[in-house]
């Protein structure tokens, strides 16, 4: 089909998410929609998919205007969407998820589920495009890459002509990326158009036929890979020249601050996700843990910060075994910037001032005996807001009213305002605009230069390469290798993230260039 979005405008209270956006997707084309976080890409696609109604503008399919009141209309028109956060019911099987909404039924009342018929069709689609799945598996047991395949099968099951993929590679290793691109090319060959939303420049150049760049809700330009480069795309995305590398001097590592020995941790479902892990981080260096989400990073961070009791193994901070409660670990000089800033990092309903003392409120000067010292809290808050450039009308504003970047700055300000020996930051710049990302990276490097040990967990390889002095790759609960970012390549890291052992590592080992080899693989 030929899809055209003409003049789409969508407003929310306080912000214009899309402003007069024009987008055309030709039949059988892979069209990349590029923009940084907050540019309005997902909103635009939600409008297309009937989840939102546009305030102005229209949607045309093959030249005819259409209106989608809900996703059902869009699906019927042949549009399928694979959302960034999967829309799969964890306790259902693959078959049940795929057929939900378009169930095969039998029986006199047309109500009884016909699972075998659906299974058959799923296997047919699976074979046609090399999307390997087990129709009877429960979604919650499946790894992320397989779940994505289920999402794609869902759309093909409904005979979509146009597929929208929203940040599909956020959860994949570079090798899985390649597999996905193969699937995309296969779909394109059978006539399906694809809209591919991303903020990753290299992917766009590799797979797209045409590229549309969005910035602050508006289309900045439409081009093709032949006519552009990563740098110019980045400039279009952000509106100014962007340095993709963090300015930092070489690290001068000091004493070992964090020492993790043979750590074993179970997750909420009882599976062992940290499986005998060893790790050391020294003061004055940044160690970044690279890995696909779901390989134990979350549980590792929780164990280090006292939120989860390990089954066995030890964690030492500056040589001392710590009692694993969050408070004692915080008091041992550990700062924690959690992955989910609204859920875990702050209390959105509290004021900026209250959030800034969230883990120090119980000690002088913020508290004397049983009572809080309001004046002291306010003074400290005013100072921190100034030091960390938090944009808020007052320290009594609730954090919920701040932008994502400023919320993260509040959390960072809180954590950085104490003397710390170890900083643990998980996905520190997820969902932030470029300005905030640069700022946070700078402050992290500053902390390192002050002598703190820094442990970053990130799924963004760009961030890992930019910040790390050493890169530790985590796979299935263990550190499979530790590499030097100046020497290692994305491909090597990618292979390690996926569990294989790239050739270059072996050579580098022989040349004595690697620091810490832990396990063997095949």
């Amino acid at each position, binding site marked *: 089909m030929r899809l055209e979005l003409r003049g789409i405008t969508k407003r929310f209270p306080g912000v214009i998410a899309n402003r007069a956006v024009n987008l055309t997707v030709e039949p059988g084309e892979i069209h990349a929609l590029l923009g940084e976080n907050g540019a309005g890409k997902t909103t635009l696609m939600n409008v297309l998919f009937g*989840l939102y109604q546009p305030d102005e503008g229209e949607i045309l399919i093959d030249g005819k205007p259409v209106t989608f009141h*809900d996703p059902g209309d869009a699906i019927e028109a042949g549009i399928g969407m694979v959302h960034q956060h999967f829309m799969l019911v964890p306790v259902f099987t693959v078959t049940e998820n795929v057929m939900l909404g378009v169930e095969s039924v039998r029986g006199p009342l047309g109500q009884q589920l016909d699972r075998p018929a659906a299974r058959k069709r799923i296997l047919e689609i699976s074979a046609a495009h090399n999307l390997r799945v087990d129709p009877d598996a429960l979604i919650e047991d499946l790894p992320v890459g397989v779940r994505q395949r289920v999402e794609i099968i869902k759309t093909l099951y409904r005979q979509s002509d146009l597929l929208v993929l929203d940040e599909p590679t956020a959860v994949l290793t570079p090798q899985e990326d390649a597999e996905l691109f193969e699937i995309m090319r296969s779909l394109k060959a059978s006539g399906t158009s694809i809209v591919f939303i991303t903020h990753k420049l290299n992917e766009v150049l590799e797979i797209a036929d045409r590229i549309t760049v969005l910035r602050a809700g508006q289309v900045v330009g439409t081009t093709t890979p032949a006519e552009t480069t990563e740098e110019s795309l980045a400039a279009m995305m952000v509106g100014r020249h962007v340095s993709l590398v963090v300015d930092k001097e070489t690290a001068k590592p000091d004493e070992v601050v964090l020492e993790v020995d043979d750590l*074993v941790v179970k997750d909420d479902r009882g599976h062992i996700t940290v499986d*005998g892990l060893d790790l050391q981080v020294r003061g004055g260096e940044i160690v970044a843990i690279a890995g696909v989400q779901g390989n134990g990073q979350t549980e590792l961070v929780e164990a280090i910060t006292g939120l989860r009791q390990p089954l066995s193994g030890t964690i030492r901070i500056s040589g001392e075994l710590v009692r694993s409660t969050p408070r004692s670990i915080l008091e041992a000089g550990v700062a924690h910037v959690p992955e989910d800033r609204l859920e875990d990092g702050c209390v959105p309903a509290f004021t900026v001032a209250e959030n800034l003392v969230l883990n120090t409120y119980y000690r002088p000067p913020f508290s004397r005996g049983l009572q809080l010292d309001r004046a002291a809290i306010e003074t400290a808050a005013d100072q921190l807001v100034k030091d960390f450039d938090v944009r808020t009308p007052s320290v009594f504003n609730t954090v919920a009213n701040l932008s994502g970047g400023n919320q993260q700055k509040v959390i960072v300000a809180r954590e950085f305002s104490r003397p710390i020996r170890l900083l643990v930051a998980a996905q520190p710049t997820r969902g932030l605009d470029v300005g905030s990302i640069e700022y946070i990276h700078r402050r992290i490097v500053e902390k390192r230069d002050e002598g703190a040990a820094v442990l970053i967990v990130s799924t963004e390889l760009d961030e890992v390469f930019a910040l790390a002095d050493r890169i530790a790759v985590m796979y299935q609960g263990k550190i499979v290798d530790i590499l030097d970012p100046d020497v290692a390549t994305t491909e090597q890291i990618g292979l390690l993230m996926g569990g294989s052992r790239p050739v270059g590592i072996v050579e580098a080992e022989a040349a004595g260039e690697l620091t810490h080899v832990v396990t063997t693989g095949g």
Partner: protein
Amino acid sequence: MTAVAASAPAVIVDRAAIRRQRILGVVYLIMAAVIAYFLTTEVTAEQTSTFVLKPAGSTGGLDVPSLVVPSMLAVYLAAGLCAALGAMQLIRGFGSRWAVVLGIVVVAFVFAFLTWAAAGRSMSLIGILQLTVQKGLPITFGALSGVLCERAGVVNIAIEGMLLSGAFTGAVVGSATGNNVVGVVAAALVGGALAGVLAVLAIRYKMNQIVAGTVINILASGLTSFVAARVLQSHRELNEPDKFTSMPIPLLSDIPIIGPMFFSGNIFMYILFVLIGLIHYGLFYTRWGLRVRAVGEHPRAADTVGINVLFTRYRNVVLGGMVAGIGGAYFTLGSTGSFVHDMTGGRGYIGLAAMIFGGWTPIGAFLASLIFGFADALQARLSILNVAVPSEFLLMVPYIVTIIVVAGLVGRVRMPAADGTPYEKG
């Protein structure tokens, strides 16, 4: 291809599980001690306990002999069993079968208790079992109502109020029209209407669902008491419905023990069985059920495939209300007859506990309700038997059992993931 650990696996110690195991073992041992010490008081060695297994005055059917056990011996055996299991639990634990063992210990304790209460006498065990099912009926209705609502993602605390309104409506309409069936239908409609109010408050106005449910309960209690005082005091004839008579099913009601329990009741029992079957089939085998469960687990996913989340929730809540209304009518039209202020006595809340205990499934809810019904029945019969325990404590039993169940089961049963969260489109 996959990495293999090079070093030997460390000894893995799950401290929390071991502590749970030890606590259970100690509890079993304590129960053994309680049995051996308290449940042998005033029991002489030659006494026997007789458990009558055929309902008094029933004609036809097989002659089921009464169960006679030597009291002292039986009690000590039960104590011994608990002690042995307790020791094993402490030392080794039972792994994945711990729940079965817990069940065995509870059954042994109850058996010892009954034996003690019946020492030197005969007790109609079949009577207690029949009463169990009867007491469990309204609880099951409540639990089923909860299943319908919560599977779609709406917490329904208002079951108590819906039961109460159903009881009231059933009595008044049944008396006014002289037709009990009309009374039941009216009760269902009233229950559905109250549920509609809950649905609007919770879904449209996104009110906290527990608060909304509590409000409805208070409203129902106040309204029924108000009208009862204003109208029914002076118009007694509006509160004297004929009760449904019992309708034993031929042949089935003659099966020993099971027959008198499940196939000799009044129409409410059979309505319940039909409902259990329908809801079970509906939830797990039909398109309707798949969509309901999707809405309860991941409403956004359901929305993106074109399912109308809000309508599904409205519909299920109203259906749940109707079921609760019918269950409420049981209190008057199926049991005592006249409406009395606040006559449901917390059965709606116990129904919720039964729903949780039963894993949000209809059959599980029924079995769980039977357990609560048993506690209720025990309390009713034992106070007649003049057991040496004050009747007030016996009256507490159903409530304390509920607490224990709820406290012990959290985290072990999987609730619908989106239960209680209002759905925001977009």
